[in-house]
C-alpha cells in the first residue's frame, strides 16, 4: 500500500505552525516526547515507546568462530527492520534507502562507539566467541525512528544476559540458566541518538520530530552522545547548511536530553531487576495499563474438561468404521505399479531406463507368443545396437507405435502396431503392453 500523500494545505499548515513555534502535539520546540520502556519476559527483550513511535528490541547470542583478523573479539550484529506493521508503505524484506541509512547509523552509534566490550565476549581465542545479535523492529512509525531504535538497542543490550560458559582444556561448556545465572554484557557507556529537524534552510529547529514534521522538514541532524557528553556519531542529512553555532547548540541540547534519557533507562532497568529478584510479575502483560478501557485482563481460567472422553467416544462410535480395501495394486513392470482406476493421466511413462531393462530381459528370455510382434521390434533394436552402425530410436506411446530409424540412405520404416490397443477401450488397458505382460507373469 502506498503512503497517503501529504496535501499542500497540510504542508502549509505544518510549516506555518513551525514558524509560529507551535507543534501539533502541544510540545515546545526543544521538548522530547515521553519515553516509555517496558521489558519482556525474556532477557534482552524490550519495547521502547517514544510518543507513538514504538520499537521492539531483542538481543540474542550464539557461539561462532571469530573473524580471522579479530581472533579475540566477539561479534556484534545489528539489524533494524521496518516492519510493514509500522506504516503501510513499508514492504517486507525490501532494503530501502531509508532502512540502509538507519542501519548504518545504528551501527555507528552502538558498534563503532565501542560501548560494548567485545573482548569480553571471547570464549576461546581464534575458535569460539559470542556473536551478539540485536534485532530491532519498528512497530509503529510516528517519526524519529532513529532515536527510538538507538534507545531500544542500548536498553536491550543492557537488559540482556548471556549464558555462562566455562572452558576446560578444549571443552566448552555452556550452562543453562538453571545451572548458572546468566551474565550481563559488559557495557562501557550508553550512547543515545537525538534528532533535530530543521526547517526553512535551518531557520527553525525542532527536537524529536514527529512523522508529520519529518515529512515537511528540510534537513535532519542526528547526534549520538553518552552521558559523559562524548559525541559518538554525528550526521546531518537532507542537504541543509548549518552554522557552527547551530551545531553547538544542538550538541548542548543533546547533552541535556541524553542525561534525562540515560537516567530513565537506568531507572527502568533497576525496576525490572528488582521485580525479577523479588519474584514479582514481569513481562509485557504487566506493562499493559489497567486503567485503559481498550485493555482487558483475565486471570487464570479453569476449563472443565471432565467429560471430553465421553464426547470423543460418542463421535467415534457414530462414525462409520473404516471400510475394507477392495483395490488391488497392479504391477506394470519392475518398479512400477498402480492402484485405482480413476481418470487416466496424460503422461506416458517416464522410464526409458526401465524400458530398456525390460527389453534386455525379454531379449534373453523367450518371447511369449502373443507379444511376438513386439518382440520382433525388440530384437531388431538389440541387434541394431550391437551392430553399432545405425542409430536406433525407440519410441513409445499408447498406440504402441514403434519407429525404427534406419540409416539415412535407406527409407525409413515405420511399423505400427495398432488395433489391439485401440479396440480395447477399457480403462484397464495401460499404456504399455509390455507391462501388462509382466503383470501376468
Amino acid at each position: 500500500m502506498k503512503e497517503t500523500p501529504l496535501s499542500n494545505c497540510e504542508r502549509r499548515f505544518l510549516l506555518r505552525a513551525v514558524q509560529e513555534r507551535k507543534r501539533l502535539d502541544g510540545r515546545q520546540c526543544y521538548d522530547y516526547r515521553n519515553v516509555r520502556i517496558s521489558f519482556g519476559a525474556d532477557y534482552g527483550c524490550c519495547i521502547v515507546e517514544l510518543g507513538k513511535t514504538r520499537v521492539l528490541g531483542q538481543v540474542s547470542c550464539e557461539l561462532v568462530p571469530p573473524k580471522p583478523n579479530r581472533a579475540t573479539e566477539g561479534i556484534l550484529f545489528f539489524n533494524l527492520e521496518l516492519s510493514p506493521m509500522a506504516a503501510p508503505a513499508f514492504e517486507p524484506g525490501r532494503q530501502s534507502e531509508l532502512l540502509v541509512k538507519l542501519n548504518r547509523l545504528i551501527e555507528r552509534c552502538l558498534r563503532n562507539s565501542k560501548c560494548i566490550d567485545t573482548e569480553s565476549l571471547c570464549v576461546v581465542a581464534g575458535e569460539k566467541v559470542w556473536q551478539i545479535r540485536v534485532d530491532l523492529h519498528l512497530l509503529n512509525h510516528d517519526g524519529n525512528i532513529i532515536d527510538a531504535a538507538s534507545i531500544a538497542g542500548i536498553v536491550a543490550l543492557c537488559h540482556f544476559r548471556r549464558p555462562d560458559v566455562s572452558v576446560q582444556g578444549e571443552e566448552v561448556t555452556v550452562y543453562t540458566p538453571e545451572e548458572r545465572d546468566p551474565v550481563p554484557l559488559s557495557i562501557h557507556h550508553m550512547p543515545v541518538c537525538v534528532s533535530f529537524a530543521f526547517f526553512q534552510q535551518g531557520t527553525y529547529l525542532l527536537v524529536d520530530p514527529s512523522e508529520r514534521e519529518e515529512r515537511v522538514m528540510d534537513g535532519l541532524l542526528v547526534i549520538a552522545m553518552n552521558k559523559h557528553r562524548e559525541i559518538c556519531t554525528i550526521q546531518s542529512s537532507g542537504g541543509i547548511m548549518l552554522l557552527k553555532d547551530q551545531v553547538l547548540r544542538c550538541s548542548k541540547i543533546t547533552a541535556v536530553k541524553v542525561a534525562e534519557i540515560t537516567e530513565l533507562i537506568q531507572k527502568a532497568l533497576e525496576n525490572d531487576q528488582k521485580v525479577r529478584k523479588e519474584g514479582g510479575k514481569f513481562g509485557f502483560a504487566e506493562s499493559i495499563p489497567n486503567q485503559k478501557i481498550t485493555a482487558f485482563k483475565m486471570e487464570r481460567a479453569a476449563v472443565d474438561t471432565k467429560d471430553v472422553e465421553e464426547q470423543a467416544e460418542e463421535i467415534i462410535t457414530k462414525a462409520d468404521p473404516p471400510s475394507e480395501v477392495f483395490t488391488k495394486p497392479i504391477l506394470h513392470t519392475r518398479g512400477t505399479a498402480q492402484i485405482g482406476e480413476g481418470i487416466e493421466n496424460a503422461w506416458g511413462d517416464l522410464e526409458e531406463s526401465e524400458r530398456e531393462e525390460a527389453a534386455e530381459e525379454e531379449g534373453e528370455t523367450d518371447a511369449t507368443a502373443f507379444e511376438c510382434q513386439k518382440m520382433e521390434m525388440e530384437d531388431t533394436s538389440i541387434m541394431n545396437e550391437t551392430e553399432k552402425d545405425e542409430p536406433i530410436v525407440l519410441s513409445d506411446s499408447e498406440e504402441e507405435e514403434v519407429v525404427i530409424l534406419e540409416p539415412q540412405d535407406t527409407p525409413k520404416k515405420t511399423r505400427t502396431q495398432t488395433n489391439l490397443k485401440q479396440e480395447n477401450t477399457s480403462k484397464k488397458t495401460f499404456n504399455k503392453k509390455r507391462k501388462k505382460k509382466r503383470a501376468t507373469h
Partner: protein
Amino acid sequence: MPLDHRRLRGPEESQPPEVWAAAAGAGGAAAAEEEEAAAAAAAEEARDPCALRPLFARAGLLSQAEGSAYVELGGGTKVLCAAWGPREAAAEPGGGAAAGGRLVCEFRRAPFAGRGPRAAAGREAEREAAAALREALEPAVRLARYPRARLAVSALLLQDGGSALAAAVSAAALALADAGVEMYDLAVGCALCRPPGAAAAWLLQPSEPEERRAAARLTVALLPSLNQVSGLLGGGQGGPPDSWAQALRLGLDGCHRLYPVLRQSLLRAARRRAAPSTA
C-alpha cells in the same frame, strides 16, 4: 548473511560419500574407481563415435502446460520441458517494443540430477544453460508474429546422463511446437565431445562419464529443414579449425538423423490431442 531462508536447510556443509571413498586412499575404493575408469575407457574404444544413443521423445504430456515435451536419452538423460505463450509482456526496460515477442527461457537442474555432490552445479550454470537455450531457440520461433508478447519455456533436467543441453534444446523446441507457437522449424540439439589425447576422434552424444573426461565439448543446435545452425556452444582444449569443423559436421549429421523422431512424436501428440475432440 545472504542465506536462503525460504528452503529448509541442512547442515552447513556436507560431502557426498564418493569423496570419502576417494579419501580412503589406497583402500579398495580408489582401486574401484580406477577399475571403473578402465572399464569406461574400454567401452569408449568399443564405441562407434557416430552412434546415436536411443532417444525417446514424447510431446504434450503435461496437463497444466500449454505445450510440453519429455526427452530421454539412452544414457539416462531425462529432460522435461514446458512452454507457454504468448502472454502479455511487462514493458521492456530498453523500450524495444517494436522488435517482436520475447522468448524467456528457464533451465533448472534437479538437485539429484548429477552424480557428484548435490549442490555442484549452481545458479550460474543454470543461467548459462538458459541463455544457451534461448540462443538456440530464438531463430526457430517466429517472434515477429508476437509483438509485445512473451513466450516462456522452462526446462527441468531430472537426470544428467550426458548431452543434457542438447536434449533440453530438442525438448524445448518440441514443447514450443506443442504449444502451437508459430515456428520456422524445430530446433534439434546434439552434443559431441573429444576425449583427451591428440588423435582422439569426436564422439557423438557423449554419456556423462565421457563428458566428464572430455578435453573438449560442443553442443550444436540445428534447424534441419532450413539447414541453419541456430546454436553453437563449445570449448575446451584447443584444436585446429579442421577438427572443430569435423565435429560440427558430425553434430549436424546427428541432428538430421534425430529430426524424424522428434517430428514423429509431435505428430503423435497432435493426433492424440485431436482424438478426444472428434470422438
